[in-house]
């Protein structure tokens, strides 16, 4: 009953308020190599905008790291002698570097920034007589062609694995309970650990096949390259598979019927995966409570890892924290499933 009436209310609230594609408080960095009047004026303009959360006084090497770690989405780079150039040639250029692993967000940010810079030309009118021009040079990092598939391949991977592993395994143990076969299995020397592992193996193999087909399709059909180590990417995928399998088994051990298990995995896993993995809606733009909730969604960590390894080509040292979180989740869920596995009928 709660699910029937509560779910639409929760969803409309979440979709209405929290999940927006709009850009707000995005973290951007400014590398100002001239530090003169004109650049200061433009920076001031950018600062007063609600869209951005500005990190100033960043150095070039720091900038590279910030992009890798994903702490900034956009960088505004002023060349040396910005004012001077503007004065002498009536034209200057500002470089906008965006993290285009999510092309939609990148485009929006670049457009906002360009618009603000364009507007600030009016402020500079007193400084120099017209006509003059400030060009913006865009650079889309990691995804120069602005392909949407760069964003959705990791997302789809998370979703498919969630569907196959969690939903299928979540009904597997309940099904035995419903069919009565559990009654006979229990009256045998088999231990809960073996039942759980036996239930995981076939879906693990299925998922491995799925991972392979998704990766092959994305490389050869969608032209999404794998920049990072393939072996590392696959092992991260298998880790996520195990986590999700454990989650499915956990649902299976606590639910009483196949229907309930189906409903829990659909409402409780599938929707959060779409909403909170960061693949449809940027997590940074959500209200803080939802950002906190997103931390318990395994897909969020997996999406982050895949994006960084596959698209940005980063190694283990950049995603070890996320890997650790996933491993922790998996061990916890496995332990709970084995503990919750009922050795009797009641």
């Amino acid at each position, binding site marked *: 009953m709660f699910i029937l009436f509560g779910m639409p209310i929760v969803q409309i609230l979440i979709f209405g308020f929290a999940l927006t594609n709009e850009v707000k408080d995005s973290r951007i960095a400014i590398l100002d190599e001239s530090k003169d009047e004109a650049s200061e004026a433009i920076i001031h303009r950018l600062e007063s905008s609600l869209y951005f959360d500005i990190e100033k006084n960043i150095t070039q090497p720091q900038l590279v790291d910030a992009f890798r770690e994903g702490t900034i989405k956009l960088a505004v780079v002023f060349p040396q002698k910005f004012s001077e150039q503007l004065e002498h040639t009536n034209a200057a250029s500002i470089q906008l570097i965006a993290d285009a692993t999510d092309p939609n967000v990148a485009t929006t940010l670049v457009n906002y920034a360009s618009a603000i810079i364009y507007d600030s030309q009016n402020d500079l009118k007193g400084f120099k007589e017209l006509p003059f021009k400030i060009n913006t040079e865009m650079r889309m990092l990691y995804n120069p062609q602005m392909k949407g598939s760069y964003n959705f391949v990791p997302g789809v991977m998370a979703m498919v694995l969630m569907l196959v592993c969690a939903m299928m395994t979540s009904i597997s143990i309940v099904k035995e309970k419903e*069919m*009565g*076969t559990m*009654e*006979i299995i*229990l009256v045998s*020397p088999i231990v809960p650990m073996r039942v759980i592992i036996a239930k995981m193996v076939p879906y693990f193999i299925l998922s491995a096949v799925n991972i392979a087909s998704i990766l092959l399709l994305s490389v050869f059909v969608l032209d999404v390259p794998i920049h990072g180590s393939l072996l590392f990417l696959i092992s991260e995928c298998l880790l996520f598979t195990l986590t999700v399998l454990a989650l499915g088994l956990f649902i299976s051990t606590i639910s009483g019927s196949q229907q309930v298990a189906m409903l829990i995995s659909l409402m409780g896993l599938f929707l959060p995966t779409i909403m909170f993995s960061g693949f449809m809606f940027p997590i940074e733009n959500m209200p803080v409570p939802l950002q906190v909730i997103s931390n318990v969604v395994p897909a969020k960590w997996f999406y982050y890892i895949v994006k960084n390894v596959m698209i940005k080509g980063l190694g283990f040292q950049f995603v070890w924290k996320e890997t650790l979180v996933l491993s922790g989740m998996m061990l916890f869920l496995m332990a709970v499933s084995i503990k919750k596995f009922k*050795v*009797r009928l009641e």
Partner: protein
Amino acid sequence: MKAVSANSIKKIFNVEKSTVTALQGLSFDVEQGELFGVIGPDGAGKTTLFRILTTLMLAQEGSAQVDGFDVVKDFKEIRKRIGYMPGRFSLYQDLTVEENLSFFATLFNTSISANYDLVKDIYEHIEPFKYRRAGALSGGMKQKLALCCALIHRPTVLFLDEPTTGVDAVSRQEFWELLKNLQKQGITILVSTPYMDEASLCNRVALLQEGKLLDIDSPEGIIKKFKKPLWAIRSTKMFRLLQDLKKMDNVESCFPFGQEHHVTFKEVLNISSLEKELTALGHRDLKMNQIQATIEDSFMELMK
């Protein structure tokens, strides 16, 4: 050592807000190598009793030992050595006959060939269908396969919960013959059934009614306890006959029993006066015979 011993087992279920007492303190023993029947109507608590003895449920009160092991403390030991066949068909419907059997053999860390001599007689009946899915078998075949699966690890005690319910008369008889053969191999068998006629095939039976044991004895012993002369009465209008008989002062009990009514009387019966009385009430073609009581008559008597 007794094969099974139960000491005042009590089981209460909480259904919604009320409680249902399924077993009200049962105590009994089953000897090694015995074919022991638990007889009772639906809802008597047979399945609950079997589930407690097979370690699938916990009793609120009382204790029980199977093969010398406690059903709560040593449930892992018990699970290694007993065979259990639930009332509902509980094999994998989408596996074939052979796959099911080898699955259960593997589950108990043994192989079909290791214990084939034990299941041979039974498996021969279903061998022609060994590539058929278990779900597509007939009722009698399903039960034989389930029995094979419960036997494949050579259990010491076999628990069969209503193995003949929903099985045709011929298959039922065959099934009981198979059980008799297994008993000869030294396996203790506990079997529950709602069919009273099957009671006479057991060494001893426990009559169970609403969670209470009415009697435990050999089938002959139970019948012997039925002391009163029993009459079978027939006429053309059976339903009215039942009503008329129940109204009579001298009639102690009267139950419909197949084609006849089984009647006991409070005082020694004068047949001719009863016949006159019934004829006066409009009954024709009256047939009255004194008969030997059956288990069912005893059960009815005990239930009062």
